[in-house]
């Protein structure tokens, strides 16, 4: 049975010339798990919000949306709230109340259920989601993953028939994201729940879904079973420019990307998982002669930032977060610091940036003690820090005012900063947003805008906390390119991230933070090449076949080399 049908839907935001959605047409059957993907700004969130009556944006709308054969407008408020569940990106902003149990009960209170039935439903859901242990806790004490799971549970407790999710894992670390996806898979499998899932990271969720819809520039270009979409993306069956196709492909799993670039005229179907990818690679490159790539050049710069035997804890009685950590950032390198959630990576950044003081140890910046940088001289052209929530670096009512003030402090002339920001915006592909309020920008735009603000001042050391959070695959490429360029000019970048693929592609060195210090560090080829579990998909696919290939590009290059040998 059809649960949702969208017919020729077009939508334009007020005061925008270009339509955000153009003639979108699709339907979802009951019990289907559908993933909608596409680069940011392609209109997928707009589409999703239009399907949830209470959250629908204002603007001019054409076309129709049917829910269970009825127009969405005909639905009573009660039905709309109860039957269509919605979970959005930011785990923090959906939690309404202060206690976990109250959060679970909130929706049911609104529906006016009796105490007894609320009690039963809340208990049931808490059991299913494994919430019992933190049932009576305050919501502010939960981790990000727990918060998002709570958001899902407090929607599910209302027993919706269809669940809409807007990039729910984009703010989570990989382990919490995997837990969340596993829970979705369970809801789908055990309850037959219909799920419409907007996501631009397909690596993990593709194996779970029944259909996948691909969106580009406001259009739904195709919607089919994953294997079929994989085939369509290969042979140019889609009415899209090659550039748009290239962009779309970036968000697909490594296995599929290898397939598209290597399997010309192959009859094999498109591999989507690591297992299928291994199979595929073995078929096209059975006995490789050349198994390693020449390693990249090592960067030997003078030390930019050094931490020696640094100890830190938040309170006298709390455990040490940094236990004798040693760290060196060289001039001209991109360093990616990886590690589990809450292991203290961000604390290390704070100590390095001088926002928190180590109680023992030595922090030096360009050989000079950190404390020797008087008043704000450390932050003027020497060191910049991008926090996880990038909105915190904006304090004015428009981007222009904010930039003016900041670059004034950095003593840049108006002309200078305008050319630099324009240049960066072109590279990062954001439109001119100078006159908008920072909070009105989309998540990706905020991220890029914040980065522009810091980069344009040309700091010699740049500390970034999760800069790829919420960015789509294409934007990550652009960001990586900009950072590498910045380092070529002699600056150094320290990135704290969970994004293994990004680190493998753009870092000069990677380090693993564990147990209060840096455990292992090496160039990405060596770092990920030696790992078996904590590594990139490309490495997992090529495991045993090649040595030290950690990105798709490297695997491709080796395959080509071997083919030429054969010929």
């Amino acid at each position, binding site marked *: 049975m059809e649960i949702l049908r969208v017919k020729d839907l077009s939508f334009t935001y007020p005061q925008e010339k270009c339509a955000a959605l153009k003639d979108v047409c699709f339907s979802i059957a009951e019990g289907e798990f559908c993933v909608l993907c596409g680069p940011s700004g392609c209109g997928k969130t707009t589409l999703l919000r239009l399907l949830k009556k209470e959250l629908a944006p204002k603007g001019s709308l054409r076309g129709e949306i049917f829910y269970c054969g009825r127009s969405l407008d005909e639905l009573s408020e009660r039905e709309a709230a109860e039957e269509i569940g919605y979970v959005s990106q930011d785990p923090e902003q959906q939690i309404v109340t202060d206690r976990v149990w109250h959060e679970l009960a909130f929706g049911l209170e*609104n529906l006016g259920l009796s105490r007894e039935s609320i*009690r039963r439903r809340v208990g049931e859901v808490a059991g299913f989601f494994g919430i019992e242990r933190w049932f009576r806790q305050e919501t502010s004490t939960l981790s990000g993953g727990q918060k998002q799971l709570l958001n899902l549970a407090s929607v599910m407790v209302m027993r919706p028939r269809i669940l809409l999710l807007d990039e729910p894992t984009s703010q989570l670390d990989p382990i919490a994201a995997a837990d969340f996806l596993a829970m979705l898979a369970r809801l789908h499998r055990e309850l037959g729940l219909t799920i419409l899932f907007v996501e631009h990271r397909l690596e993990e969720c593709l194996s779970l879904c029944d259909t996948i819809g691909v969106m580009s520039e406001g259009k739904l270009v195709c919607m089919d079973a994953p294997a079929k979409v994989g085939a369509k993306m290969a042979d140019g069956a889609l009415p899209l420019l090659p550039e748009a196709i290239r962009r779309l492909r970036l968000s697909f799993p490594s296995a599929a990307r290898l397939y598209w670039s290597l399997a010309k005229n192959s009859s094999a179907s498109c591999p989507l998982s690591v297992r299928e990818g291994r199979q595929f690679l073995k078929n096209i490159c059975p006995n490789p002669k050349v198994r390693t790539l020449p390693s990249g050049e090592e960067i030997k710069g003078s030390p930019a930032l050094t931490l020696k035997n640094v100890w830190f804890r938040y309170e006298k009685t709390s455990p040490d977060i940094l236990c004798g950590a040693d760290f060196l950032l060289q001039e001209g390198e991109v360093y990616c610091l990886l590690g589990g959630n809450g292991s203290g990576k961000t604390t290390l950044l704070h100590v390095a940036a001088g926002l928190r003081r180590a109680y023992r140890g030595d922090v030096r910046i360009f050989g000079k003690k950190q404390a020797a940088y008087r008043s704000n001289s450390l932050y003027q052209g020497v060191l910049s820090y991008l926090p996880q929530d990038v909105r915190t670096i904006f304090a004015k009512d428009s981007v222009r005012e904010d930039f003016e003030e900041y670059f004034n402090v950095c003593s840049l002339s108006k002309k200078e900063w305008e050319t630099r920001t324009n240049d960066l915006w072109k590279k990062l592909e954001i439109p001119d947003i100078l006159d908008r309020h920072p*909070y009105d920008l989309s998540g990706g735009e905020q991220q890029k805008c914040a980065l522009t603000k810091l980069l344009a001042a040309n700091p010699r050391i740049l500390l970034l906390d999760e800069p790829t959070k919420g960015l789509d695959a294409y934007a990550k490429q652009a960001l990586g390119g900009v950072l590498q360029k910045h380092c070529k000019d002699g600056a150094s970048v320290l990135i704290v991230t969970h994004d293994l693929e990004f680190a493998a592609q753009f870092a000069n060195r990677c380090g693993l933070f564990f147990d209060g210090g840096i455990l292992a560090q090496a160039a990405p080829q060596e770092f990920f090449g030696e790992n078996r579990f904590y590594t990139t998909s490309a490495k997992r696919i090529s495991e045993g076949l090649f040595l030290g290939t950690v990105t798709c590009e490297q695997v491709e290059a080796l395959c080509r080399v071997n083919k030429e040998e054969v010929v």
Partner: protein
Amino acid sequence: MKALAGYHPAVLFFYFAAVLLTAMFVRHPVLLAESFVGAILLFAALESRKQFFSQLLFSVLLALAVTLTNPLFSHNGVTPLFFINGNPVTLEAVFYGAAIGCMTASVLLWCRCFQILFTGDKLMYLIGRPLPRVSLVFSLTLRFVPLFLQKRREISQAQKAMGLFGSGSISERAHSLFRTCSALFDWSLSYAMETAAAMKARGYGLAHRTNFHLYVWRRSDSIFLIFSGMTALFVAISFARGELRYAYYPAAQRFWEQPPLLAGAAFLLLVFLPSFLEIKESLKWKYYVSKI
């Protein structure tokens, strides 16, 4: 888990109201002594040993201080003990001081116990019964405050790391504070809008909203309430009959000649009830553990 914390908030509230009212308004030395001892016992059962001793020391010192200061200012009474600068220090004044000191210390201790047992969610539940809206607003606020403080810290750190946070002169610091506040204001507004949307998406604003809570009324709650209600009633009757009036001046009444038997016994039961329950529970556990 403390035995008392498991009781229904309404029961606990009634109990503490009864005890505190008596402890504050009755000046009879017998009842004051009972209240003091009862408070110490309950506090001992609820707090960790270290906390208990430091608080106990504080309350004993407080009681002593009041005992010693009263005779310095009040020279009423008929039994002078000795003279300071020609002013008599009377036995009655010392006695009255001791009584007042005891009362202050015991009220403080009862309040501490109340604070330990009566957590925020219990208070919210009690307010929520008659005023559900107010209790929801409370809940929203309690959610917002920790988030707000965290954002404030993040924003001032981010601003500092951009070199925009003056630490020098007062005007510079005031300016930085203003910046942080304005950024926080923007954040709060956007948070409020997002939360409002999230609330609406989950059906807030539909008619006939109900109010959920986790408290269940058990048989033990009824028993506790009846017991404390009866004893409090006896104290109240005795109070109304004037049996609890007591004169410290000019000569202290001899309370053992006309003891307030009914009120004394009832109040004794009332103040020792919770400590009795706590001790019973801990003994029970000891017994269970030895069996396991």
